[in-house]
């Protein structure tokens, strides 16, 4: 690449990079430093070294929250990615109702989290909510969404799967750029629609899918916050829906324990990084070491 061209690219990326430095890298470093101190925002910070990390290890709740978050990501990310890609493929073509369908998939993502949570609080009400009334009417079991730990976790997953507008938009765009000729070529070689989809379309979409899954992993480790705080309030006991963000929020803003909160955030960042790395490696292997590059 030409020197000038490279400079131009850097210049174009500069506003974004400055934003990332100020809003992501800076705060992350501050969090890392903060995790080495005991601080209640009120008294002067006191250096405690790795004390906050040891406190987390001894804390009864932190390991539960970490496990909850990992389990959520393990279930929600594949589910959301499959749903986003599936819906994008279904609603790709011009067909009656496809526009409406796309709008319907995007709509929940445009609603503020808090408003959605308030709606879910009603929808999921075990006795008076429309979901259980409907389930009961057709003879299906009616889960105790707020008091059965496993039902509550599924409720959080359910709430998450409705907010996939962003992933859907990316999947739709990625699906659109798959060249028609490739599909026609596959068809003329005798491949059925399913084989064409799995062998041709998905591999072409793979870089976008990797990005989608990676982005969703990051998002899903944080997206539980509003539903878990507002709808299930971290419960039912013992801490069934206390995910890392809820744990961090409670430590920081309810108990003013910013040291452990920062330490937990650092662990969350590390877990996120590890999950991304795993995905990258897995995808690279699948695509014969091609990784992010275009086909």
């Amino acid at each position, binding site marked *: 690449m030409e020197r000038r061209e490279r400079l131009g690219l850097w210049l174009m990326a500069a506003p974004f990079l400055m934003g990332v430095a100020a809003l992501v890298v800076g705060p992350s470093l501050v969090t890392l430093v903060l995790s080495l101190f005991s601080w*209640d*925002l*009120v*008294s002067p910070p006191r250096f405690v070294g790795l004390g906050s990390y040891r*406190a987390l290890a*001894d*804390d*009864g*709740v932190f390991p539960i929250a970490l496990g909850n978050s990992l389990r959520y990501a393990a279930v929600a990310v594949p589910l959301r990615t499959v749903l986003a890609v599936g819906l994008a493929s279904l609603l790709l073509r011009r067909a009656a109702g496809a526009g409406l369908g796309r709008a319907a998939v995007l709509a929940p993502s445009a609603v503020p989290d808090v408003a959605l949570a308030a709606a879910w609080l009603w929808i999921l*009400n*075990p*006795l*008076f909510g429309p979901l259980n009334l409907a389930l009961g009417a057709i003879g299906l079991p009616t889960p*105790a969404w*707020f*008091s059965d730990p496993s039902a509550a976790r599924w409720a959080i997953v359910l709430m998450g799967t409705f907010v996939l507008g962003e992933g859907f938009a990316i999947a739709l765009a990625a699906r659109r750029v798959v060249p028609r000729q490739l599909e026609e070529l596959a068809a003329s070689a005798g491949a059925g629609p399913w084989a064409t989809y799995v062998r041709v379309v998905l591999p072409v979409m793979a870089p976008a899918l990797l990005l989608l899954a990676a982005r969703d992993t990051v998002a899903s480790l944080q997206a539980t916050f509003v539903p878990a705080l507002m709808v299930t309030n971290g*419960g*039912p*006991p*013992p*801490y069934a829906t206390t995910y890392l963000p809820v744990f961090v929020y*409670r430590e920081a*803003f*309810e*108990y*003013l*324990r910013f040291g452990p909160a920062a330490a937990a955030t650092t662990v969350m960042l590390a877990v996120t990084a590890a999950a991304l790395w795993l995905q990258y490696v897995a995808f690279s292997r699948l695509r014969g070491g091609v990784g992010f590059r275009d086909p």
Partner: protein
Amino acid sequence: MRRGVIVVVIALLVAVACGGSGTEVRVLVAGDPEELAAYRELVAAFHASQDGVRVRLEEVTDRDELLARLATSIASGRPPDVFLLNYRYVGRFVTSDTIVPLDGYLAASAVLDPEAFFDTPLEAFRFEGRQMCLPQNAASLVVYFNADLFEEAGVATPRGAWTWDEMVEAATALTRDTDGDGAVDVYGLGVEPELLRVAPVIWSNGGELVDDAERPTRLAVRSTAALGALRRFLELRKVHEVTPPELDAESEPAEARFTSGRLAMLMDSRRVVPTLRAAATFDWDVAPLPTLREPATVLHADGYCLTSGSERADDAWRFLEFALGPQGQRVTALAGRTVPSLEQVARSDAFLDPAEPPRSSQVFLDQLDVARQVPATAAWPRVEDAANAVLEEAYYEPGRVEAAEVALALLQATRGAFAEVAG
């Protein structure tokens, strides 16, 4: 052009940063709409009473939000001048010197006299001999009852002191399937399985909640008296089945169930009165907390605290004098929300007017003699949360649970929080 935009942006930022600092006294309060309305009335009355000082209310919806707002505003160097907070959450701000002792102000005040306050709530805000905040109210845990449901079930309404067994007996008779479909429609009692609700039962049975009230290092729930109380509390759900089961409790908070006339009794503080006055369509009143061995209840008091470094401390104190003085306390008492902390107002019609329910508001005043406080150390909120998770699980878990096991789980769950207090 671009420079113009930058100037405008900077001007906006400066305006936002300095927004409202002016000369107003900033007062941070939390509450539901009815409560906040009472505080707005209070501020309006204060403004009408004098010209020099202006107060700006900063309103949030609940205590957690208030704590978050308070901590972040202190860290950013712009705390409110005054905040109103339950004594159980004040400890953190005392140990960090975020609030100033009010003894000096009190001694010099021509309006406020500590002698005029009820002792118990005043004591709750005294830390190591210093009066750190002043109580605006002196509420405690009582039993609200729906007199119409009592009459329908042919059960006598509680009059004055009563025992735990009498309450259980009434609750059992009141827990009924009214339409004959085999499902319970009316439950006898609503109570949150929380440490704050269990504490008075333990005290009433002659037990203690913690090993040392001043410097607690662990819950004292393994004594015979505490275990007995814990067992009686758990039996409400597990044996007598007089409180709504978990599914019903999660579907509809006890307060809403009581308000809609499908719960005969509700254990709560004064907090619910404005809502009940506005929404209850039946005859209701309050009774003291039932006793096991001796009468006891738990204090629920909120106090006004003055932040250190306030540039308008003197103006803020003038607002406190008004809010805590007879005039201000009348305003909040008339709204139904508070049990006044000033004896003079508490014994007046502003609080005791029999035309305004509950008729037996006197119960709150009588109970003050036996109201005790839970510890108010910096880490107490964490202790409560950890204990509540254990209690909720034990209370609703199907099958029998030994009180001793629950007590052990309580000790283990709260150990970390207590260790922080000690450290």
